[in-house]
């Protein structure tokens, strides 16, 4: 018997578990499924439903001798509690005996079920939960065959009561387990739901405006153990047994949530989370859940289009590809390889991106490729390569002793499931959370420390923290000696960033900077998460890299940096070398670097022909559009006829992520494979296949038969991706890492759980004796003096005006329209109310925007969503900019 474990007997089977384990979890270890409704693995136990009643006995202790009483046979006497106990709230104790299947326990559970069913309607045939319903299953297993209650006395409630646009409540079916309410409070930190009244009149309500305002509302339908909460999207879509389930990975943001595509007759009927404790646990956000309608949209491109007499007309693949081959060859002949360039969207898979760069580098012979358009235009993110979070990092376990520093990211909007995990680490598991940002975000509510800096001074703050760590002598000296170079120079440079001075520049209290630096440096594990709102400059990244190395928070699990990049495969695009100056695997190019996307779209680039895949620069700015119009020949691979595609000479229809297989690399460098879920519309091809065909027309002989085959080459050519064959990526996860008992998670695990594979960073390599990392210092851009006017922040919102989301009608009402968020005081000062229009101007550019008063916005700041219809903010802050000082006047 060790100090930290407890041995008990459940239904005659001995089981040893850690101290403090609940009986229900202990029973799970020996595959003994104690029925539950209100208990959920991810939430605190409440013991509300009483379904898990079991008989519990403990060894009797003799009061005088304080020794266990022994019977004649010399065995300890077990004294059972007179009443049954709830297995979900009772922790185990040494020598405990639990009877789950005793006659008395069965009888009690039968009684509980009879009570739960007194008012539960027998409408299983029309219920979306039917077939995957814990209440249905447990009633069949444990319940009484009939009820003694009067049918006429049933509690009646309105059916199909809309809880917002996305969720429908059928209160009659509800058994008040409060899983939804607790999910919203404990996990989503959006207390949008509540229980009102009590007893039989108790019901679920939402008081937020708009109703049930949360990015995570769809999860409540998953955790609901009955059919009380169902999604508007899947409503009556199909019966659960009719669905075919394909494992997939969400393609809306860089978190890379594992999903299940539930399909029927070649259509996606719903998207559910697939368990992966290392990525999304059992959650996905509403954008991922409801934003799948682009796949089956009637607006999709179905045949290649070729421009003839100024019009795009349908053509065969052979015709279109021949034309692309001829034109590209001719342009290369006339103007050299550097007359051609390519931009690939970071929504493409690793296989597509690898072949994209291979096409340009090997076949055409140019380095003019890039994936960074818009906000990420100046991004040169290699932090993941150097000091990215260590392999095996698991935010679902990060807690006490860990510190998380978030800089310049509104996680709730930019990477929702990452928000859940970071907030959970702080609020539930006791991690120290430091949230640094230019404005208040939802994460501030969970953060112990909020550092509010002036826009443009994020780098100064990072350097200030670094200087404070050095000043307070919290440096990991031995670690620096062993793995980094240039500490002396860095130290010297940091002398200019004394806390007091940084406090003055950034507007953050000096004490707070010191305290935050101390907390971060002294933590056992430290993770830095930074977003694009902190500024896209290399000075910031150098400072954060140095901070991670100097504090020793690099090169091991649960330590390092996470960059919150904008797209599903932004990480993979950098890994695959779809940048002008780096080859796959971050090796620098031989000779001169090519043109970046910004240079290619600048107009005077000298490019004659371009290949653009899965990205829409023409929609970003009018200048880009003009540059594209100036090209001799433009080829676009797209799902839809986007603004860019409308300018193209050849448009090639491609498959969406659900229609093909491939891999994405997420923010934590986890490479994850997704399967084919539905057939593609018309004649669409996978992007990699299109690239193979183009390469073939240009004389290359590429022999790739599948995405799998491309990945096989990547594993050979890119050392970072060694061992990432599809075979390994799709290997199912061991039972220890997943819950096979669906009643505990409130959803059905209908597709394999997979874990994905992370590649090791340089910091991890040098922990094992690899080359030392240089500590860099880059002088930050000078801070502009105080100007009169508002600081306008163009920030990313979850429901933006993206092309893919536009196809999902169910979230239509949540999609951000052009607007400007102001504080109440500022609005009063300007004499405007909600909905009134204001003119926002800067340097002669002015746009009119309707006002929305928001209490999260500070005085003097105005927040406006990026990437919405008309792109008004980008006009003011620039497509790659974050903030600007503007004048706001009443129109």
């Amino acid at each position, binding site marked *: 018997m060790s100090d930290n474990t407890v041995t008990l007997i459940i239904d005659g089977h001995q089981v040893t578990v850690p101290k403090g384990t609940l009986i229900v979890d202990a029973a799970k270890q020996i595959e003994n499924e104690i029925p539950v409704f209100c208990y959920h693995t991810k939430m605190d136990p409440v013991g509300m439903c009483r379904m898990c009643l079991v008989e519990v006995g403990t060894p009797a202790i003799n009061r005088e001798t304080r020794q266990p009483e022994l019977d004649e046979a010399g065995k300890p006497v077990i004294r059972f509690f007179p009443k049954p106990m709830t297995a979900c709230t009772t922790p185990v104790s040494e020598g405990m005996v639990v009877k789950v299947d005793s006659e008395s326990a069965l009888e009690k559970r039968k009684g509980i079920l009879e009570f739960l069913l007194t008012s539960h309607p027998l409408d299983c045939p029309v219920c979306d939960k039917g077939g995957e319903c814990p209440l249905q299953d447990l009633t069949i297993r444990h319940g009484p065959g009939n009820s003694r209650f009067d049918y006429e006395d049933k509690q009646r*409630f309105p059916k199909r009561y809309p809880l917002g646009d996305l969720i429908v409540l059928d209160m009659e079916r509800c058994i008040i387990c409060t899983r939804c309410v607790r999910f919203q409070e404990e996990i989503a930190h959006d207390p949008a739901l509540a229980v009102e009244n009590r007893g039989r009149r108790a019901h679920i309500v939402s008081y937020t405006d708009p109703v049930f305002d949360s990015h995570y509302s769809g999860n409540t339908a998953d955790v609901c153990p009955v059919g009380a909460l169902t999604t508007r999207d899947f409503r009556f879509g199909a*019966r659960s047994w009719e669905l075919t389930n394909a494992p997939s990975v969400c393609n809306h943001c860089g978190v890379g949530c594992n999903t299940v595509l539930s399909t029927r007759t070649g259509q996606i009927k719903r998207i559910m989370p697939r368990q992966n404790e290392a990525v999304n646990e059992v959650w996905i956000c509403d954008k991922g859940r409801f934003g799948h309608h682009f796949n089956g949209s009637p607006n999709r491109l179905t045949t290649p289009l070729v421009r003839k007499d100024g019009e795009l007309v349908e053509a065969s693949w052979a015709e279109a590809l021949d034309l692309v081959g001829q034109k590209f060859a001719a342009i290369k002949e006339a103007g050299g390889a550097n007359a051609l360039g390519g931009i690939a969207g970071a929504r493409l898979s690793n296989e597509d991106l690898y072949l994209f760069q291979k096409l340009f580098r090997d076949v055409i012979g140019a380095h003019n490729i890039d994936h960074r358009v818009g906000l990420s235009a100046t991004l040169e993110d290699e932090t993941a390569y150097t000091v990215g979070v260590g392999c095996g990092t698991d935010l679902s376990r990060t807690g006490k002793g860990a510190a998380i520093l978030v800089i310049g990211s509104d996680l709730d909007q930019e990477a929702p499931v990452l928000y859940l995990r970071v907030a959970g680490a702080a609020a539930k598991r006791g991690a120290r959370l430091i949230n640094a940002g230019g404005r208040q975000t939802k994460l501030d509510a969970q953060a112990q420390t909020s550092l509010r800096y002036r826009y443009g001074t994020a780098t100064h703050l990072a350097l200030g923290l670094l200087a404070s760590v050095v000043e307070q002598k919290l440096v990991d000296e031995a670690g620096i000696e062993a793995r980094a170079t240039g500490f002396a120079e860095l130290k010297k440079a940091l002398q200019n960033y004394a806390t007091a001075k940084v406090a003055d520049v950034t507007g953050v209290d000096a004490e707070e900077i010191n305290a935050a630096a101390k907390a971060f440096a002294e933590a056992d594990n430290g993770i830095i998460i930074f977003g694009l709102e902190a500024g896209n400059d290399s000075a910031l990244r150098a400072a954060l890299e140095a901070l991670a190395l100097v504090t020793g928070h690099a090169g091991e699990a649960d330590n390092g940096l996470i960059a919150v990049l904008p797209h599903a495969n932004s990480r993979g695009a950098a890994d695959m070398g779809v940048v002008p100056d780096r080859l796959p695997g971050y090796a620098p190019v031989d000779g001169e670097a090519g043109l970046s996307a910004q240079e290619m779209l600048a107009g005077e680039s000298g490019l004659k022909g371009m290949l653009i895949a899965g990205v829409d620069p023409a929609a970003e700015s009018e200048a880009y559009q003009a540059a594209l119009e100036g090209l001799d020949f433009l080829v676009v691979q797209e799902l839809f006829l986007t603004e860019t595609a409308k300018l193209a000479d050849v448009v090639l229809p491609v498959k969406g992520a659900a229609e093909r297989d491939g891999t994405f690399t997420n923010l934590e460098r986890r490479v994850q494979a997704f399967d084919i879920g539905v057939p593609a519309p018309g004649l669409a091809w996978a992007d990699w296949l299109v690239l193979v065909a183009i390469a073939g027309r240009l004389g290359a002989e590429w022999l790739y038969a599948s995405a799998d085959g491309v990945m096989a080459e990547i594993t050979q050519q890119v050392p970072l991706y060694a061992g990432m064959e599809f075979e390994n990526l799709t290997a199912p996860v061991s039972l220890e890492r997943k819950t096979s008992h669906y009643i505990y998670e409130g959803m059905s695990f209908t597709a394999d759980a997979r874990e994905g594979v992370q590649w090791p960073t340089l910091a991890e390599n040098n922990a094992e004796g690899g080359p030392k990392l240089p500590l860099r210092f880059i002088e930050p851009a000078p801070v502009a003096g105080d100007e009169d006017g508002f600081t306008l922040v163009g920030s990313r919102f979850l429901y933006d005006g993206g092309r893919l989301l536009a196809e999902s009608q169910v979230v239509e009402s949540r999609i951000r329209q052009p607007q400007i968020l102001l504080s109440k005081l500022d609005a009063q000062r300007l004499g405007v109310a909600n909905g009134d229009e204001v003119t926002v101007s800067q340097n002669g550019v002015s746009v009119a925007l309707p006002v929305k008063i928001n209490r999260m916005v500070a005085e003097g700041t105005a927040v406006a969503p990026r990437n919405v219809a008309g792109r008004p903010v980008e006009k003011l802050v620039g497509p790659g900019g974050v903030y600007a000082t503007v004048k706001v006047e009443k129109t």
Partner: protein
Amino acid sequence: MIKEVVTSSTEIARAMGVTIKYFFTKPVTHQFPDEPVEVYPRFRGRHVLKRHENGLERCIGCALCAAACPTDCIYVEAAENTDDERYSPGERYAKVYTINMLRCIFCGYCAEACPTEAVVLEHDFALAEYDRWDAIYPKERLLEPHDASKVVVVRDDEVFVNVSRWGKK
């Protein structure tokens, strides 16, 4: 020899007797399709989708028939009733309901599985078609005919409990 003649004659006479006897009985065969055929009450012929007395469809699109079907010949797609467009009394109705009569083995499991007694195997057995595709019966052909003008309009609040402020104590 004589004995043989006598026995064979009697045999012939007996056989003729049987023939003559049946000559005067009613025939068991029917002149189908000129004459209608009587079937037993529990005969399982072509499916019919029944209606309620008020004209609304009984089928709620639950697809339990499709789940029960051993030949997988039933295809159901459900949709939601609204006040403006109501087909069945509850929330859900069958937007698409198709039976492939070529696959169907008329086992009646569908009718047994039906929670609303909407699908019933009735007595129509003459299912010959000129085109194989015509043997796939859409909902319109399966649905019991009903005078559309007699369909009672039922509003949502007559079907469901509708408390304006059910949060009220």
